[in-house]
C-alpha cells in the first residue's frame, strides 16, 4: 500500500468473520473484549520506529516495525491517566448498526492523554489502528481497521492530549 494509502479493513479480519473456528472477532463487546485504538507512526525516516500497512497483517503483534527490537516500537505511548503507560484506548459504547444497506461500526470519541513517543527522533502520529482485544496474548488480538486519512493527520504529539473525533456517520462501514 503506497502512501497516502487511505483507510482499510484488514482483509484477514474480514475472512475470519466467516470462519467457524476463528474466535475473538465480534465488535460489540466491551472491557477486555472490546475494540481498542492505538496511534502509530508511519513513514518515519528510521524504519525501526515506523509501521507499514500490509494486507497480510492479522494480529496486534504485526504492528512491529521492521528490524526493531520492540514489537510495538511504532506505537505511541499514552502517558496520562486513566491508563498511564498504556499503548491503546478502548472505543467505548461500541455499536454495530445497519445504516442503509451496510453495518456501521461506531463508538465514542477517544482521547489519548499526554501522548509521547517512547523513542527519540521522528515523532509524528500518521495513522490509527483498531483491533479487537481479548484476555489472551497480544498475538491473538485481531487487527480490524487501519486509518491514515482524515482531518488532523499527521499529529505532532508534544505531551498533550490527542483526541480522535470519529465521523458523525460512524467509524467505518462494512
Amino acid at each position, binding site marked *: 500500500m503506497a502512501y497516502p494509502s487511505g483507510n*482499510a479493513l484488514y*482483509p*484477514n479480519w*474480514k*475472512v475470519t*468473520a*466467516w*470462519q*467457524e473456528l476463528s*474466535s475473538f*472477532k*465480534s*465488535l*460489540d*463487546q466491551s472491557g477486555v*473484549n472490546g475494540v481498542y485504538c492505538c496511534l502509530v507512526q508511519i513513514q518515519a525516516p528510521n524504519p525501526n520506529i515506523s509501521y507499514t500497512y500490509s*494486507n497480510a497483517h492479522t494480529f496486534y503483534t504485526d504492528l512491529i516495525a521492521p528490524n526493531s527490537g520492540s514489537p510495538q516500537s511504532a506505537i505511541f505511548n499514552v502517558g496520562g491517566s486513566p491508563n498511564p503507560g498504556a499503548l491503546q484506548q478502548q472505543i467505548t459504547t461500541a455499536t*454495530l*448498526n*445497519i445504516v442503509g*444497506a*451496510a*453495518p456501521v*461500526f461506531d463508538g465514542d470519541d477517544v482521547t489519548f492523554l499526554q501522548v509521547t513517543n517512547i523513542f527519540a527522533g521522528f515523532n509524528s502520529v500518521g495513522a490509527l489502528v483498531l483491533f479487537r482485544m481479548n484476555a489472551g496474548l497480544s498475538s491473538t488480538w485481531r487487527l480490524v481497521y487501519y486509518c491514515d486519512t482524515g482531518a488532523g493527520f499527521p499529529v505532532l504529539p508534544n505531551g498533550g492530549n490527542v483526541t480522535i473525533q470519529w465521523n458523525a456517520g460512524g467509524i467505518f462501514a*462494512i
Partner: protein
Amino acid sequence: MAPALYPKWKQAVWQEAHTAANDVSLDQGDAAHGVYCALVTLGGGAGQYTYNATHTFYSDITSGSIQGTPLQITAPTVSLAANPVAGGQGGLFDGNDCTFVPVTGTAVGALILYRHNPGANTTWRLVYYYDTTGFGLPVTANGGNVIVSWSPSGIFVL
C-alpha cells in the same frame, strides 16, 4: 438490482451473540451447517419473492417462491482475494457448482444463498441474493435440470 449480501447477515457475523451460536460461518461442509442455494421466482404476488434489505432468515422468503429443492454448495471455501468492486482485498466465498434435478414450476429469477443449521428455518440466515439478468437468468423451469455454474473467480467477495 446488483447482487447483494444481506445486511443483516453482515451485521451478525460481527456480533458476539451470533458468532458464539455458530450459525454464521460459511466454511462448514456438513449438510446440517452448510451453505445452500435456492432458486426463487420473483415478483410481488403470491408465491413470488422480492428482495428486502431487512430480510434475515430463510422464513423471510415468500412461501411458494422457491422452485425445486435447495441444494448445498459443497466444498465451501473462504479465502483472501482481490475485491474488484471495493478495491484491496477481501474475503472470497466459493464452492462447487449446483445441479438442480429436475426443476418444475415457474420462472426462476434469482438465487438466494443461506446458511443452514439444525434448528428451525426461522434461524437459517440469508447470506446472498443474486438476480442479475443474463448469464442464464431468468430461466424457465420445464422439468429439466438447472445448473448453477459459479464464476471461476468465486461466488462473492466482501
